[in-house]
């Protein structure tokens, strides 16, 4: 599966780097991977700037614990390891922590490649770029829980020892460096069906400490090696929230769900630059992401582009009204071909009620004759606008 690289990632395979720095970036990425591979813990690193918020690094400990190979894991979203019996509340907590760019620690039922379930303590933190304060990765550590089952999700008192069923999860603990300790009270062999039925599985204090330690080690490694790469990262957002040029990771994740060509431009910045471009836009126009971010859309116009159409667009933008135009665009594809772009533009408001962006949705005119089983192209185009409106409005409501 191909993954479009995100510019800030520490795991860039350097396909987008300029010629001179090609080898350097490659090396840094390799060194980071090698250093991370040395750590004994089970953890994954994800990239919210890639559509689908996939895993971009999985430790050997993780692969051993889940039974998957590296190729089977890279590119997948973390939900792939959840199953029908995974607690919905916990899933929601993780989703919200990602959306709000904050840490979370929650017990979770996951499933191995074999299909067998296991409980683990899921501890995730955001990793920020030091210069712009954006979240560029999430690090998630998994510590197996050799658990105490709880009644109804509340903690029983210590005095009611006979009421606690202590499950022994011997079979499930198979991490390299993790030493399993026999529980002192009566160990009940829990079959897998049993595990799935548990309402909750509280991690012990020592397991929580283990997860904090693992998170700390991974972050320290990332910080150290990111320095070499010239892209410092840290565990705390230590500067003002990212500039208007940079969207929050949660907004990027939401926009990444929209599989269509579109861009977001910021009318409050000089020359109304592009602040987001979808993968489909890059495919359509043949440009790389770093070539378009920060640029005004006019680079798509050329000699034969009708200037009256451009004028019409400008007028609509000034008036804050949506419009649809047919415009001749010039691509950067191999053949440098031109294409007729049925372009729809509309202002998009954020939670304050004011216009925060303009969305431009492109549709190549030749693609208009889609099979009748699909949405009409016009509807499809408008659905992109709608999805962007929902994403933008909601993303600004995050409490800081």
């Amino acid at each position, binding site marked *: 599966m191909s993954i479009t690289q995100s510019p800030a990632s520490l795991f860039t395979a350097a396909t987008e780097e300029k010629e001179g720095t090609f080898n350097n970036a490659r090396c840094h990425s390799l060194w980071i991977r090698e250093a991370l591979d040395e750590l004994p813990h089970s953890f994954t690193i994800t990239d919210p700037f890639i559509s689908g918020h996939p895993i971009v690094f999985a430790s050997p400990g993780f692969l051993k614990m889940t039974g998957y190979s590296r190729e089977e894991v890279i590119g997948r979203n973390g939900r792939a390891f959840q199953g029908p019996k995974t607690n*919905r509340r916990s899933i929601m907590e993780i989703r919200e922590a990602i959306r709000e760019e904050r840490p979370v620690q929650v017990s979770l039922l996951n499933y191995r490649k074999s299909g067998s379930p296991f409980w683990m303590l899921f501890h995730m933190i955001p990793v920020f770029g030091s210069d712009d304060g954006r979240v560029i990765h999430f690090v998630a550590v998994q510590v197996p829980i050799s658990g105490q089952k709880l009644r*109804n999700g509340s903690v029983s008192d210590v005095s009611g020892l006979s009421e606690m069923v202590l499950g022994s999860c011997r079979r499930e603990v198979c991490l390299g460096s993790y030493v399993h300790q026999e529980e002192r009270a009566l160990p009940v062999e829990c079959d897998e069906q049993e595990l799935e039925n548990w309402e909750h599985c509280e991690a012990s204090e020592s397991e929580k400490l283990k997860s904090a330690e693992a998170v700390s080690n991974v972050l320290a490694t990332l910080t150290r090696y990111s320095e070499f790469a010239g892209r410092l990262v840290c565990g705390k957002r230590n500067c003002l929230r990212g500039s208007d040029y940079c969207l929050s990771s949660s907004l990027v994740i939401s926009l990444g769900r929209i599989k269509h060509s579109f861009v977001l431009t910021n009318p409050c910045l000089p020359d109304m630059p592009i602040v987001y471009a979808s993968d489909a836009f890059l495919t359509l126009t043949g440009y790389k992401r770093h070539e378009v971010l920060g640029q005004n859309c006019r680079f798509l116009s050329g000699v034969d582009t009708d200037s009256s159409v451009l004028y019409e667009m400008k007028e609509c933008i000034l008036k804050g009204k949506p419009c649809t135009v047919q415009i001749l665009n010039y691509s950067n594809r191999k053949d440098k071909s031109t294409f007729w772009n049925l372009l729809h533009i509309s202002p998009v408001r954020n939670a304050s009620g004011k216009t925060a962006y303009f969305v431009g949705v492109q549709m190549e005119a030749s693609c208009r004759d889609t099979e009748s089983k699909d949405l009409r192209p016009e509807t499809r185009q408008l659905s992109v606008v709608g*999805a962007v409106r929902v994403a933008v409005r909601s993303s600004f409501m995050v409490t800081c």
Partner: protein
Amino acid sequence: MLKIKRVPTVVSNYQKDESSDESVGCGRNCLGACCINGARLPLYACKKLEKSCAGEKPVAFLESLVLGEWEDRFQRGLFRYDVTACETKVIPGKYGFVAQLNEGRHLKKRPTEFRVDKVLQSFDGNKFNFTKVGQEELLFQFEAGEDGEVQFFPCMPLDAENSPSVIAINVSPIEYGHVLLIPRVLDCLPQRIDHKSLLLALHMATEAANPYFRLGYNSLGAFATINHLHFQAYYLAMPFPIEKAPSKKMITTASGVKISELLSYPVRSLLFEGGSSMHDLSDTVSDACVCLQNNNIPFNILIADCGRQIFLMPQCYAEKQALGEVSPEVLETQVNPAVWEISGHMVLKRKEDYEGASEENAWRLLAEASLSEERFKEVYALIFEAIGCSYQEEEVEGTIVEQDNPSGSVNQKSNRTTHGGPITNGTASECLVLQ
């Protein structure tokens, strides 16, 4: 007879359909017998099988259809106001109540035209109902399909024989994408839950495959404004406070539906989830609703988490209001606690309420709608009886009793630990759904 104070407003928001001069009948292009011949709408027929929910998965087809059609109506000016121009924020606090300043909504909303002290009332064709809306307010037909595949027909005639269910815009939206699901619109069903309709609503939640797309229902007496069966739905890309409330399991039915009560939430509510199939979950909740309806207890329903979680909230605000028992400060806000408000999304009419919105205020307002602890116990006892389960609240810390159920396997521990002693609490052997 209890009445809600009427607010003068336009009853319907229709526009002349310029494209079809040949529209005969009443001229409003509605759904009545006068105009329906030749009416066409896209039809979305969802899969029979159940799907798992997405998350960061790509925007699903149904979501594209809803958003695309909604945006079309939005740009055509069919809504009373631009809801995205309404300021909104998350109130600081543990639960994150969402507040919106919307000064125009209650002025432009359709008035309530029936008594609010009876949950079951007959349909009255003379009052406003959804056969009177202009067809341009309809987005598409929706049905539970027969096949294993989603089927989409961009232009399907509205056939009264097929009893079509439709999705319409809510012209006074709470949020972007606010739509109405109107089951079997031409059958003119009154606002009351039946098994088939709730199942259709659940299908829609599942098909949308987006945990931020929820469906809601208000019974009469719980601030439904139109006595014509309908559900509401919209997108809010963050959790509702009610979804964050901790819950305590009470029972599991024979069909595997888990029923919990919410803890530390201003409105006492039940949460239904699980079940061996969507049907089981839907039927259990329907049974509960029918019981409430028959006992004249107003309630709201929230369908969340792509149809996996259903909240049932009985309430008594309207009764309290009529009896003069609601505090004046709460009354002044003129906020009616319907399903969205109870779930934690408050649309505020006055700037001062919005500026001063706090978790305590929100809590205090919603608490007025809640049943008292004793009344709630009576109500859920009624419900459990109706669905054929018995429940005994735990009073002492009991011991775990391993018991074989008739099939011989020892696997009911998770239920056992819920309550003390060897009491029937919905384990497979003991819980029979009496039909």
